[in-house]
């Protein structure tokens, strides 16, 4: 079974097939959502419950990416990521409708900290 599905190192065709299967599988969650939402209305308690589940799900993913990232962000100390996040949040809270400003400053601050970090090594 395992050997049947393993990508031979030189087989470009199989790699594309696996990508196609993954893409179809990823879409199927959205399609299933449309199918199941057929009878659901905004007033239903089911809808309110699923909204809670979705918010908790998305929040857990976002905070996890900031606190325990994988890849290039993990090269930076936690304190840098928290400073950039905290600054952006503070701007957002203090000034109304400042999403773009808060996002730009948070991102630039992260780049600046990363730059200082690489310069000090």
């Amino acid at each position, binding site marked *: 079974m395992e050997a049947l*599905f393993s990508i031979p190192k030189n087989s470009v065709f199989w*790699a594309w097939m696996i990508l196609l299967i*993954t893409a179809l599988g990823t879409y199927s969650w959205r399609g*299933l959502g449309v199918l199941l939402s057929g009878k659901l209305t905004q007033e239903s308690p089911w809808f309110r419950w699923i909204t*809670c589940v*979705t918010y908790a799900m998305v929040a857990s993913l976002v905070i996890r990416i900031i606190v*325990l990232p994988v890849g290039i962000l993990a090269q930076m100390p936690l304190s840098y990521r928290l400073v950039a996040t905290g600054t952006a949040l503070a701007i*957002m809270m203090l000034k109304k409708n400042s999403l773009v400003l808060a996002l730009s400053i948070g991102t630039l601050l992260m780049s600046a900290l*990363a730059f200082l970090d690489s310069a000090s090594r």
Partner: protein
Amino acid sequence: MYALPGQVVFVEMIALGASGFAIAVAAILTGARFLPMTLTLVPQIPKEDRSRSLYATAHFISMTSWAVMMRDFGKIAPERRNAYFTGFGLVCWSSGLPGTMIGYLLAGHVPTPITIGLVMLNPLFFLLSFTEVKAQVNRLALLIGGISGPIVYSVSPSWSILICGLVGGSAAFLIDLSLKRNS
């Protein structure tokens, strides 16, 4: 495949030399969040505006479009929501496709600190958009999910999103329900 975490899993597992079957299962599982996300968006569109075309436009559902729709649907007349969602999704796709190509060509030529800032842009955007969530019960769900996220992840990386969502979200829903009964 229009989903960043799934793409990351896909590429990382290829680099590790995992079997194609394992890659497909792992990457598809990371897309499970699209099910509840679709279930929270579609009911906000009036029934008479829902048709089979939703199976096509459902492709536009992503973290970004979901966060923006959850913020804006409340301010938009229900009969205009489907058009707003479709238009937003089209803009995302038509800027995302050339953006991906440019990113592919530029990769390796961008200084690392800039890349780190841009990688941070993604979670920051979602975190900031959460501050605009109004309903108390949803704020509670965000709080419980956010706190439990990293904790559960250190125990079970692959199931953490599902566990935090189902357990944390249900907890927020029940706490809010009991608070309302008592008041």
